């Protein structure tokens, strides 16, 4: 019996679609059926695209008419709800944007439509991407497909869970401090945060503008690369978009998958991110993976990054500062919720009542924190100091990349924790991103890739690969080699071991 369509990778589906083995309508229906079967338990989706099958039929008609279609044409994809989509609500997981349908598409979404992908729907997330568990979504938490009592990571837990639960082969996420990579690690999927400016932020509802980056979520390295090739590249609508000409990341992934030896590659292990406080099974799988890489010929070198110790602290000053400014736009005037206080009031009273009711606890916490960090008298001590730490972290990376071609670390310090476990302890929640935050502060690209199940709890662990800014192709090349080495070692993919769910 042929494998169910919803278990195939995007690359495999592309081949079948191109050869006429299957239609996009069949592929899309298979994924909609899977969503209908499991999403009541997983809750990865906030909204399903009612036009998905029509889009699929259109793509099939174009193909039938002999039109030359690109890679991934007719393949379904899910979109994190932080991205603006014409015709579908875009709430960023917040009550304040409930039901809001944007008047424009994010550039990445427009590029997916132009490349004839089929948008399945919008995925759940922590409100305005503030969180590491999706528990701060105003619409209820997403559940980890490996254990429904556990978190799927965050903020992009919806996209990661949808991919891991075989509800979609690929998805888009956004990563401000780890929101693509940490969910990938705890769900056994693949996630990439590109170089800052490598992918347009136009139409991505901003959290922290100097840190946010949109990127792919998938089950394989090649699938992530295929998505990155479509969404990446210069966008004049984003003034921080880089004008670089990028190589094909799919080609890099294919070359990596073919590569037999890693001889000549220097892999740096960041000493500060191989910490004794990490879960034992995470550390164990990480060191086994280093051995595997060394056996394949790579040179493993230890590198120090002394200022990483200050990264989380700097991040929780810079992010709230930028977020408190970005979220000022939710003012009850132009879009979203309006709450009229009892007895009326001025527009400022309406604004304050609206924001009180429309924002959840974590968003309020960070707005107040950011407002404090930016206030007169405290600006230099907090925000100014955090910007200096950012310089020190960039210098640490420069020094590390002079000794190594890529850097590696665990992608998350633990496996998925239980829903509710850290909800009332903001500081504990913030420390989940200790491994991923440095890359955002420096603007460099990072990938999370499954590296096995932790022996003590049978849950996925992820390895993070980091490369210098603009060298995203190194992630895909090494990622694809390592993915093949691990699958050869296990005799199966990691996600094939996940519970059936339905």
């Amino acid at each position, binding site marked *: 019996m042929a494998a169910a369509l919803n278990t195939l990778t995007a690359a495999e589906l592309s081949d079948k679609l191109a050869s006429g083995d299957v239609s996009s309508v069949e592929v899309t229906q298979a994924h909609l059926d899977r969503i209908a079967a499991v999403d009541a338990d997983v809750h990865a989706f906030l909204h399903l695209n009612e036009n998905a099958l029509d889009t699929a039929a259109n793509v099939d008609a174009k193909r039938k008419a002999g039109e030359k279609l690109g890679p991934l044409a007719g393949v379904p994809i899910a979109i994190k709800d932080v991205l603006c989509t014409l015709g579908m609500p875009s709430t960023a997981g917040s009550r304040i944007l409930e039901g809001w349908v944007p*008047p424009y598409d994010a550039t990445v979404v427009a590029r997916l439509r132009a490349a004839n992908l089929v948008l399945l729907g919008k995925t759940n997330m922590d409100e305005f991407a503030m969180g590491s568990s999706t528990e701060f979504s105003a619409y209820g938490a997403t559940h980890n497909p490996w254990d429904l009592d556990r978190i799927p990571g965050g903020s992009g837990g919806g996209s990661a869970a949808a991919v891991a639960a075989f509800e979609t082969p690929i998805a888009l996420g956004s990563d401000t401090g780890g929101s693509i990579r940490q969910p990938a690690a705890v769900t056994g999927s693949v996630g990439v945060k590109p170089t800052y400016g490598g992918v347009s932020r136009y139409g991505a509802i901003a959290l922290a503008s100097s840190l946010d980056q949109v990127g792919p979520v998938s089950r394989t390295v090649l699938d992530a690369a295929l998505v990155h090739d479509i969404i990446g590249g210069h966008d004049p609508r984003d003034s921080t978009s880089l004008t670089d000409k990028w190589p094909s990341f799919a080609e890099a992934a294919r070359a990596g998958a073919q590569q037999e030896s890693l001889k000549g590659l220097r892999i740096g292990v960041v000493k500060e991110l191989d910490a004794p406080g990490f879960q034992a099974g995470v550390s164990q799988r990480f060191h086994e993976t280093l051995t595997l890489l060394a056996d394949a010929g790579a040179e493993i070198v230890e590198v120090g990054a002394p200022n990483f110790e200050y990264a989380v602290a700097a991040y929780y000053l810079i992010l709230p500062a930028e977020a408190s400014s970005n979220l000022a736009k939710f003012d009850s*005037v132009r*879009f979203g919720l309006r709450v009229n206080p009892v007895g009326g009031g001025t527009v*400022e009273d309406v604004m304050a009542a609206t924001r009180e009711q429309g924002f959840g606890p974590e968003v309020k916490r960070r707005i107040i924190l950011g407002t404090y960090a930016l206030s007169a008298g405290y600006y230099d001590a907090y925000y100014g100091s955090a910007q200096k730490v950012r310089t020190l972290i960039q210098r640490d990376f420069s020094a590390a990349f002079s000794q190594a071609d890529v850097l590696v670390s665990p992608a998350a310090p633990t496996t998925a924790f239980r829903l509710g476990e850290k909800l009332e302890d903001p500081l504990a929640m913030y420390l989940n991103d200790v491994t991923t935050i440095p890359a955002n502060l420096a603007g460099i690209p990072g990938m999370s890739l499954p590296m096995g199940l932790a022996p003590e709890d049978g849950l996925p662990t992820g390895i993070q690969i980091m490369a210098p800014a603009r060298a995203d192709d190194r992630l895909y090349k090494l990622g694809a080699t390592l993915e093949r080495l691990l699958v050869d070692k296990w005799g199966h993919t990691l996600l094939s071991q996940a519970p059936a769910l339905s």
Partner: protein
Amino acid sequence: MSQSTPSQGKSKEAGLTPDVVRHLAGLARIALTEDEVAKLTGELGIILASIDKVSEVATADVPGTSHPIPLTNVYRDDVPGPTLTTAEALAGAPDHDGSRFRVTAILGEEQ
């Protein structure tokens, strides 16, 4: 104004008081309840104590970084591009009159 404010020269070691949180909430236009003020005062105090460590290494000789990838100013040709129609711009508004957003009074009685 009897509220204490961050700009009144209090050292950051003095920590966050409920009055400061109320003041910040006013600046941020969030009508926090008293329960929220109390909870946030405790939580933010703990968070601030933890993130205060940035000052340990942020010495005067280190320049700040505001943007991860240095860019020079970005210009485009001064020609009209596509814009939203009025109807599109108003489509998501809580209230409008067909051509403008509608809000309640801008000024209160004391102003």
